[in-house]
């Protein structure tokens, strides 16, 4: 029995709390039965039912990262094409930079996966039901949630990567996501400890790491195009 990630994120990001973001994303998870034939030995299910599977092994991880980078790139594309009113030049530059980085990450994964396999995730469609692109608070809250989620996703996925070249690449990206998260958090709460706040860093000084299924629940609220990741029990 397979399920499909096909969710709604109504009201998900009006709130600056990451926990609420995650909770709302998770609450939107819809479990729909799909008839997908049983065993497979290759690392990809051709989407006969029209639902893409991320695949197995490193291909699955790369497609997973590609999905998240598609989301971030898509979001910041909308932000920079419609800056909220009264935005400062500093914040404008910051969002343009982050937009550039995320689009580069997205296209990097597209190129890297295409070079290795034809089992590449298609272009996903996203929705931002709860986001007010004219509101600074809403954009910063959503950015914070996306960046923290990106950090937690890479931190949690690293151990599943078999090819250590890919692991190093993931490491090169995750620290940039953490730099983004820190900057966004400081914009929300300037000059405080929020850039690496106690809500994300535990008593051992460790940042959040999340398993793929928890990330999909968090980010799923934005994802319109259904996909599955059977290897990770998603979908």
């Amino acid at each position, binding site marked *: 029995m397979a399920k499909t990630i096909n969710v709604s994120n109504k009201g998900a990001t009006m709130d600056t709390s990451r926990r609420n973001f995650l909770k709302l994303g998770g609450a939107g998870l819809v479990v729909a039965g799909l008839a997908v034939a049983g065993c497979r030995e290759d690392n990809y299910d051709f989407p006969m039912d029209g639902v893409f599977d991320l695949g197995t092994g490193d291909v699955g991880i790369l497609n997973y990262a590609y999905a998240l980078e598609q989301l971030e790139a898509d979001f910041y594309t909308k932000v920079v094409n419609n800056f909220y009113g009264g935005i400062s030049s500093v914040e404008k530059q910051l969002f343009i930079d982050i937009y*550039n980085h995320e689009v580069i990450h997205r296209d990097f994964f597209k190129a*890297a996966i295409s070079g290795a396999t034809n089992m590449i995730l298609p272009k996903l469609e996203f929705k931002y039901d709860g986001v007010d692109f004219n509101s600074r608070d809403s954009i910063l809250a959503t950015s914070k949630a996306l960046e923290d989620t990106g950090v937690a996703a890479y931190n949690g996925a690293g151990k599943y990567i078999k090819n250590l070249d890919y*692991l*190093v690449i993931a*490491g090169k990206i995750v620290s940039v996501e953490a730099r983004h998260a820190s900057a966004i958090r400081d914009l929300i709460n300037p000059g405080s400890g929020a850039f690496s706040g106690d809500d994300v860093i535990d008593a051992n000084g*460790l*940042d959040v790491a999340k398993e793929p299924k928890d990330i999909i629940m968090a980010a799923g609220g934005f994802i319109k195009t259904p996909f599955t990741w059977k290897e990770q029990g998603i979908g």
Partner: protein
Amino acid sequence: MNLLNILDRLADDHFYSKIGSRSEGLSHMANFGKKAAITGIPLGLGSFMATSAKAETVTTTSTYSAASAASALTDALQLALTLEYLEDEYYRTGLAKAGLIPGGDKVVFQQISKHETAHVAFLKATLTSLGTEPGAKPEFDFTVNGAFQPFDDYAQFMVLAQAFEDTGVRAYKGQAGNVASNKAVLQAALQIHSVEARHASQVRRMRANKGWVELANGGNMPAATDAVYAGEDNLNQAGYNTSTLFGATAGSASFDEILTGSDAAAIAGLFIV
């Protein structure tokens, strides 16, 4: 520097099936350390530096065994511990120096300091659980024989803080392959790595820089810190040219680069008496 050779060897599936485990929690680290048949030789900083360089330059004629993977793992953790000792002492000293850190910035450095102290404790506990004696804290001289006055000059304090954090990000990244044999340690290292990046971003922004590193330019940093940023202008990621879309500045900033263990140790070594 044959890091990629080592990475290729570490990527071997047989190696993973023997050493790796996806489900190891940190609570099982002690048992797991025993299983990994670590040689158990306590490594001081001196021996660490020697073995680290060896681990990264191992030639194709040697056999890459579970034992050498285990020593690569603990060597990597010893390097991390050295860097955390350095950061921990640096911030504690800075916070203790009356009048150095302006009141408005104190909360930031208290937060960073708290994390570095936690990292020291965590890494010591991790090494101990792996059957390896954590290296002793070196004696640091943050003035580098009087060249810097970080505890008398806040601007200098900030410069070194940025250099240490940006170095930390690169150093942890550079050790990813060496800790990958133990999935629990790998994840924890990643979780520390992103904290260092959050710190780096914050300190950089307090210095009126961007949170990210553009090209090999640290951002209003003295030439003495050039080694921290050498190679950050790399635009080639697995054959993909990151400058294609938005130019070299954005391309370089979208990926942080690694530092080898020997390069990281050399940077830290500047401050070790």
